[in-house]
């Protein structure tokens, strides 16, 4: 099955698989405890592959552990955003009428609210726990997916097989779950994958601003300390460069995966 996929899809999948494995096995792979303090500002050596930070914590281990929080926030947010977007888009498109107008009005409002500022405001007000960060990321991110799902459902519900089901007296819920939803799989996949990348980017920005989950290592957080604790002035490339590479690489991975998925979509239609 994988052999027929576009090359972008395979490369993306490969990158993400590695990141996922690193995240899952971080405690085994990490040579040190990333919270263990020691001598600060060590250069890379055999003992500390990427040196140590301002508190003397091993940067390589920080990076491995950081994969976890970035991935968890990315995946959970994307799941929430996609489920919300699909539900709202489907209800709005399928039921039409009053439902459609009300839901689309809400979507328009969510789409017009600038997303990064609202996320920052929420993250600043709420206590910075994992769930609050996820809520802050998700609050407006679902609107794009809802729009796209709605327009697809509008096309789908005019197709003969849906009309036949309707005349046969199938309930709305049954038609939506059994016939509309399976036909949305492609779009849901593409949008869902993009959502993971976007959520990880937002999380990296938040923790770069110092609004990340308290007491947890994340890539944006490492970059935050590298930047604000004079890692850059001193030219400690082993401190600031790895998190930049990790964030960019994973975003690239998700982008390639969704791009590949989209190509597949285009080919089939």
């Amino acid at each position: 099955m994988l052999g027929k996929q576009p090359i972008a899809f395979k490369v993306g999948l490969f990158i993400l698989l590695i990141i996922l494995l690193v995240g899952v096995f971080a405690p085994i792979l990490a040579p040190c405890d990333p919270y263990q303090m020691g001598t600060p500002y060590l250069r890379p050596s055999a003992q500390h592959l990427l040196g140590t930070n301002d508190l003397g914590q091993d940067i390589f281990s920080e990076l491995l552990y950081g994969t976890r929080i970035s991935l968890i926030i990315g995946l959970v947010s994307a799941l929430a955003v996609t489920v919300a977007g699909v539900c709202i888009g489907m209800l709005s498109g399928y039921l039409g009428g009053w439902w459609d107008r009300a839901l689309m009005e809400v979507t328009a409002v969510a789409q017009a609210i600038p997303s990064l500022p609202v996320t920052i405001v929420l993250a600043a007000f709420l206590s910075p726990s994992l769930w609050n960060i996820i809520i802050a990321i998700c609050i407006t991110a679902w609107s794009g997916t809802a729009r796209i799902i709605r327009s697809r459902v509008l096309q789908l519900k005019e197709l003969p097989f849906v009309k036949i089901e309707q005349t046969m007296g199938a309930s709305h819920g049954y038609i939506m779950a059994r016939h509309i939803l399976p036909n949305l799989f492609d779009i849901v996949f593409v949008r869902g994958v993009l959502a993971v990348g976007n959520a990880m980017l937002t999380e990296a920005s938040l923790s770069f601003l110092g609004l990340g989950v308290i007491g947890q290592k994340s890539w944006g957080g490492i970059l935050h300390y590298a930047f604000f604790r004079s890692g850059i002035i001193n030219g400690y490339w082993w401190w600031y460069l790895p998190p930049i590479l990790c964030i960019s690489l994973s975003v690239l991975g998700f982008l390639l995966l969704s791009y590949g998925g989209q190509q597949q979509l285009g080919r089939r239609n």
Partner: protein
Amino acid sequence: MAKRTLLGRLGESVLIVFCIVTLNFFLIRFMPGDPVLHIIGEEEYYNLEVHAPQVIEEIRGEYGLNQSLGRQYLTYLGKTARLDFGNSYRTKAPVLETVLFRMKWTLFLAIPATVIAAFLGGALGLWAGWKPGGRFDLAATPCFLLISTVPTNCLAILFLICFAFQLGWFPISGITSGGLTGFAKGLDILHHMALPLAVLVLYKTSSNYMLMKSTVSLIRQEDYVSTAISKGLSQGKVLSRHVLKNALCPYLTSICMQFGGMLAGSMMTEIVFSWKGMGTLIYDAVNAKDFPMLQTCFLLISICVVAFNLIADLLCLAVDPRVREGMNHVG
């Protein structure tokens, strides 16, 4: 004709701003602890509690905090309508003054960036879209794609390290070195501006390029373009008369929205280069938990976005007669 839809859009814009004001109101009210604490800040609150508890009561009265939630909300709306956003926790100065001052510097950076990127991205996108698969397209598209995968703050940091620290071509941070006047000061500001401007232009150009390229490559396949070419129109004329005219509407809409996102769009870049604009203001407000400042920034950013979305619709209406006629149907 299109008046009804326009009124609808106007109503929607008002609704959005209203939602944001409401969100701001509830954020303060539903946070744990005394709301007065969040209005004047922790330090001031504990100070007043010991030395002048009656002042706290006065503030409570001013914001109507003893009354029902509905009354409090009305008081808040009134204050917002009078542009009274309270004082900063940190500087004790009225928030609005500080925000407007910082906004000036953000605009000073963002307006040139948006304008330059609009022309640059549009021109390059037109070129690549007109000859898809050509040498330029193959060279430029992967570059711009790559840029868009690197987060803004990361690219800004890389620029800072490369051009300011390693090569020493540009100053490291800030807006001006100080102690200069007149022409020299202007030059100095431009020198400080070069790197953040370059980062912003790069990002905006790459997104403009992608949009223009995909629009033009779609239009290129249209029958009227083949007709124009086959009836012997020069390439320049086909481009300006037929392609550009049709590609302009989505492009202008997108540029207009970029203007709307200007106030917050350069935040990461500003923070990395310590450009004292709204982005750094937000960063400082976040770290000092300066809520009135943060909320005012948020409100102004949103108003800017909403206003330019509306302008984008109007612009599209003015440029494209099809939209003018069809708005009632599409609505």
